[in-house]
């Protein structure tokens, strides 16, 4: 084993020795520096390896042949080995990234760089307070030097502010150190903790000064203006070292000195950390400079980690592991992100659209964004999971709330940025620097993130049970993205089929239904993808991500797996949605609502863990005293996915603007994940007669109103896909309402609706999607007469509409019949009236879409339109077939469903006789007979109409009868334009965008708050120094409750 002293000896010896090499041999200098950094990395690596293998005890390394406290001692334990390894890896890779820059500046640059990395290692290893001070100073001086790699006014003034601030902070540390020595007689940290200093006021002040100065080095909000300037102006390679290396070392130093202090000081850390996390992210909202934004994000994340250190006394789980998971993610993602800003070369985030030309760079960026937010499969996901669970068990819900809120705010700006990169048009010429030494480090960290994520799952309870196979499949799909679309489509369908084959047979009960919707539905909706020519870069991996995520919801035994799947699904669907034309804002709002919802679910899981003490899904039914809150959180969380009123504003845009074959995926299938969640929630609440009666009652009303408003809004749309999207809101309102009744019939209806909505919404979106594909417009007034051009599509859509509207004989009618039975049985008459009214309105839009798209006159420019591609028709007709079968034989579906529900709701079941007639308490109904009778009636009426109208009068294209009214704009001549203006006048106020306005108001005010907060960063270095002093005093006052 190489003793860790050689990290210092190598770093310094080499730095000194580089002076021997003549200037012209700069490459030799560079190579030697790399070798040195690599050797340092190797030393920490081998120590880590030895600890992992043998569980050895931490080793102290004595210098000068004397034992501490008389001589300086270093410590190399498992934690130290890990942290130094991380620092050295960042150092090494950043050196690769900076290679051309360092070379250009020359030998001195390499020297200073080596010194910096060496000093960070010592900060981690040393156990001596004064030694810590010396190396803090080295760090700040070396950093101030490396600021000058790009020498201009900005870096100069940032470097000066940095130097001034850190020197002052080091001074504070020094005062603390010398007084500690005075009181404790030693500078050796372990000694000081062991002997325990006298509980004097002065002692606590001295410890406070030590602690606060390390906190200040970590740039707490708001005393961090100097730090932000450095992040913004330093060369990205240096910023990544500061964010990844320096911050890591300082965090470790904080962790190291905390045992000196009292319990009270831990609370200081928590609050300073949380305020930094929130404040920093808030200020990021309005930021448009990429690097400064990353600076805000960095400071925020570090704040979070500070607070986690402070939470140590409240957490039973090993805090080091939680910290490590979050730290590794932050370090790699942030370093990688900073490098990426160096690669892209434009620091205005709205100009990042240029990155699109290099999908692999986009992939890296996506990886970093998702890792920073804490999505699976990255380590921070597991870290945050465990953290929230632990905090919940100890009852610290306020902290949970703040952490989740901060994460959500961070998500706002990171996803906005990602959205710009994926979608925003930019006029700026691409100036992306993809030389290998720039991209290689970035790629390495992105890959590491996935790898460490896999490893990290085993550090946490239940993490090991995650099924990684599907994720490996997604990874392979990413790797195969260069293949043509049809090959990938086959692979995807095959993979999904295999997955379905694996899980579906194992399911029973309601899970089986949803497994079927998610996976078989996934396969069906993938089929239209065969129409795509070319490569369709990035589509298949993310589509698979969504389906796999949903599969995991089904598979999940533990809440961790469920949440893992939920987040995976959210990530995948986000990427699917943002692919659409003009989808940028909708995808963002989708993501934010989803994340907000996910965090509510997360918090509820925390409560469940606190109540039940285990991670299993069954824990949801033993919530403890906070059940009411937890179930409400769960319900709201899941309703963000089902787009209930108030939480629906993301849906119309997201579904309508998505690609033709994506809309059915996100509408027919994805929404059902929310329904599954609601079902799980209601089941956990304990079946029909549970103690939480208010929640279902409120949800019932909400469902009814959602149905009304959704349907009404659908009727007023000009955009065909938007119409369907609003109709989804309405339909999901029915489902919510039905489930909320908490009766057998209600659930039968709700689940039946889920199935039928899956089928007909898939048909409708595929049908209308095919029309949109052919006509290249969404506007119904630009369509018409498609019945002639696309008859097969028309038939499918017609059937879909009939099912939707609940017109006999198709299964939709069965749904209606059940529905009214259930309502009457439950006695929710007012709500029932609303539902009934909503049902009538549904006819309006059903007619509108059918009429405007397929009937009426064919437009001139559409003469050459062809029938929908066969790949669109196949799944539609498959679904249609199933609708037909179940319409004819509803008992085939409702009977087994009923028996599935029987254990939960034993009362009020339907009774089926031999002939397939269902009896409820109120009436009876036979699906087959309805089918026959309606069939006969249809044939008769059709025949009669056919005979009557053998000679219909053809109307010329522009022969419009407008009674003297002159059309102002061309589209007003179309019958379908503003079709229900009369109704709109009467009822439009219901659909007025009050809710959108409300959310806009919130976002505006939060942003404005962040904007006014950041005004404290006046740019004046002197003010920043003043902030530092003030910060010390204020924190002191708070921690002491006065002087």
């Amino acid at each position, binding site marked *: 084993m190489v003793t860790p002293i050689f990290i210092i000896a190598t770093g310094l010896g080499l730095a000194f020795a580089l002076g021997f090499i003549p200037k012209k041999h700069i490459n030799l200098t560079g190579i030697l520096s790399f070798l040195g950094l690599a050797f340092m990395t190797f030393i920490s690596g081998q120590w880590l390896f030895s600890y992992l293998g043998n569980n050895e005890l931490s080793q102290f390394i004595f210098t000068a042949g004397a034992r501490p406290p008389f001589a300086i001692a270093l410590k190399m334990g498992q934690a130290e080995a890990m942290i130094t390894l991380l620092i050295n890896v960042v150092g090494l890779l950043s050196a690769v990234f900076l290679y051309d820059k360092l070379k250009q500046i020359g030998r001195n640059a390499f020297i200073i760089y080596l010194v910096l990395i060496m000093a960070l290692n010592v900060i981690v290893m040393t156990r001596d307070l*004064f030694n810590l*001070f*010396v190396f803090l*100073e080295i760090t700040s*001086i070396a950093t*101030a*030097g490396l600021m000058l790699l790009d020498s*201009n*006014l*900005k870096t*100069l*003034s*940032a*470097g*000066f502010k940095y*130097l*001034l601030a850190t*020197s*002052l902070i080091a*001074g504070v540390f*020094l*005062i603390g150190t*010398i*007084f500690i*020595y*005075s009181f404790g007689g030693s*500078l050796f940290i372990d000694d000081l903790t062991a002997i325990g200093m006298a509980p004097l006021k002065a002692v606590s002040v001295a410890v406070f000064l030590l602690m606060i100065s390390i906190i200040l080095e970590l740039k707490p909000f708001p005393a961090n203006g100097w730090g*932000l*300037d450095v992040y*913004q*102006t330093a060369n990205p390679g240096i910023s990544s070292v500061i964010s990844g290396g320096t911050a890591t070392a300082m965090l470790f130093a904080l962790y190291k000195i905390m045992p000196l202090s009292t319990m009270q000081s831990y609370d200081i850390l928590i609050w300073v950390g949380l305020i930094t996390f929130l404040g920093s992210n808030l*200020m990021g909202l*309005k*930021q448009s400079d990429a690097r*400064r934004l990353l600076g805000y994000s960095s400071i925020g994340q570090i704040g979070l980690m500070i607070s986690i250190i402070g939470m140590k006394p409240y957490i039973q789980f090993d805090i080091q592991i939680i910290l490590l998971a979050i730290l590794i993610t932050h370090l790699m993602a942030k370093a990688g992100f900073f490098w990426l800003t160096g690669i892209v070369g434009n620091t205005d985030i709205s100009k990042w659209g240029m990155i699109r030309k290099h999908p692999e760079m986009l992939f890296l960026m996506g990886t970093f964004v998702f890792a920073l937010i804490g999505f699976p499969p990255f380590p921070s996901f597991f870290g945050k999971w465990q953290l929230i669970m632990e905090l919940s068990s100890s009852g610290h819900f306020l902290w949970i709330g703040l952490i989740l809120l901060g994460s959500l705010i961070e998500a706002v700006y990171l996803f906005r940025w990602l959205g710009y990169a994926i979608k925003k048009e930019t006029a700026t010429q691409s100036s992306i620097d993809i030389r290998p030494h720039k991209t290689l480090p970035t790629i390495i960290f992105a890959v590491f993130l996935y790898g460490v994520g896999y490893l990290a799952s085993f550090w946490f309870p239940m993490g090991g049970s995650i099924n990684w196979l599907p994720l490996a499949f997604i990874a392979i799909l990413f790797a195969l993205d260069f293949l043509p679309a049809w090959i990938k489509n086959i692979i995807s369908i095959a993979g999904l089929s295999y997955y379905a084959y694996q899980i579906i047979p194992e399911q029973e009960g309601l899970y089986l239904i949803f497994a079927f919707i998610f996976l078989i539905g996934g396969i069906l909706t993938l089929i239209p993808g065969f129409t795509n020519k070319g490569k369709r870069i990035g589509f298949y991996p993310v589509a698979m991500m969504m389906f796999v995520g949903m599969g995991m919801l089904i598979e999940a035994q533990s809440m961790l797996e469920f949440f893992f799947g939920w987040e995976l699904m959210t990530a995948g669907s986000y990427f699917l949605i943002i692919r659409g034309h003009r989808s940028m804002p909708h995808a963002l709002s989708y993501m934010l609502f989803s994340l907000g919802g996910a965090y509510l679910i997360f918090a509820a899981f925390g409560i469940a863990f606190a109540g039940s003490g285990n991670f299993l899904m069954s824990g949801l039914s033993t919530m403890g005293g906070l059940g009411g809150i937890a179930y409400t959180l769960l319900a709201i969380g899941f309703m963000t996915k089902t787009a209930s009123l108030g939480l629906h504003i993301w849906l119309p845009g997201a579904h309508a603007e998505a690609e033709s074959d994506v809309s059915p995926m996100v509408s027919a299938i994805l929404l059902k994940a929310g329904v599954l969640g609601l079902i799980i929630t209601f089941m956990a609440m304990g079946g029909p007669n549970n103690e939480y009666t208010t929640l279902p009652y409120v949800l019932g009303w909400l469902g009814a109103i959602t149905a009304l408003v959704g349907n009404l809004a659908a009727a007023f749309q000009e955009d065909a896909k938007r119409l369907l999207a609003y109709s989804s809101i309405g339909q999901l309102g029915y489902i919510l309402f039905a489930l909320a009744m908490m009766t057998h019939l209600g659930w039968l209806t709700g689940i039946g609706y889920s199935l039928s909505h899956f089928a007909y919404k898939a048909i409708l979106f595929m049908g209308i999607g095919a029309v949109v594909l052919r006509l290249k417009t969404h506007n119904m007034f630009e369509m018409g007469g498609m019945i002639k051009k696309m008859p097969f599509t028309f038939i499918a859509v017609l059937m879909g509409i009939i099912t939707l509207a609940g017109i006999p004989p198709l299964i939709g009618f069965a749904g209606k019949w059940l529905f009214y039975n259930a309502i009457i049985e439950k006695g929710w008459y007012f709500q029932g009236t609303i539902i009934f009214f909503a049902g009538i309105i549904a006819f309006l839009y059903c007619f509108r879409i059918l009429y405007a798209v397929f009937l009426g006159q064919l437009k001139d420019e559409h003469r050459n339109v062809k029938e929908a591609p066969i790949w669109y028709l196949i799944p539609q007709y498959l679904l249609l077939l199933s609708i037909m079968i179940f319409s004819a034989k509803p008992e085939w579906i409702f009977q087994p469903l009923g028996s599935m529900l029987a254990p939960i709701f034993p009362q009020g079941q339907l009774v089926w006789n031999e002939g397939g007639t269902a009896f409820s308490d109120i009436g009876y109904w036979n699906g087959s007979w309805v089918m026959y009778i309606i069939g006969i009636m249809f044939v008769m009426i059709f025949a009669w109409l056919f005979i009557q109208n053998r000679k219909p009068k053809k109307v010329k294209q522009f022969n419009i009868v407008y009674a003297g009214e002159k059309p102002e704009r061309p589209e007003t001549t179309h019958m379908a334009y503003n079709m229900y203006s009369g109704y709109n006048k009467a009822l439009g106020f219901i659909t007025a965008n009050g809710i959108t306005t409300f959310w806009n108001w919130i976002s505006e005010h939060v942003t404005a708050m962040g904007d006014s907060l*950041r*005004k404290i*960063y*006046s*740019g*004046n*270095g*002197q003010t920043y*120094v*003043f902030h530092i*002093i003030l910060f010390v005093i204020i924190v002191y006052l708070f921690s002491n409750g006065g002087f």
Partner: protein
Amino acid sequence: MEIFQLEYITLITGGLLVLTGLWGIISQKNLIRMVIGFSLFDTGLHVIMISIGYIRNGTAPILDKAVDKVNAAGQIVDPLPQALVLTAIVIGLGVTALMLAYVVRLHKEKGSLNITNFKDLKW
């Protein structure tokens, strides 16, 4: 406890120097004066440190004829803070020199020594 002792006097002097230095840093607009403030702050710190290591009526921690090895422990002052201050002084010089170099360069870029003129980075 009597306040009128050598180490108290120097300790308080050091403390006041630290505050004076801080005052200089936050109240003076001139960059050079800010650096002067910093160096006062530093000097104050060093005075504090040495005061802490002082043992009443002690002699310098050097063993010679007057102070022999055997009785040294009762006679000399604490060598450790002195060693620390030696290090700290040199570090302080390094930082001061670096700050001055920065100031010179900043002045070259903008032709001004007023810190309020260097507000290019904000928010």
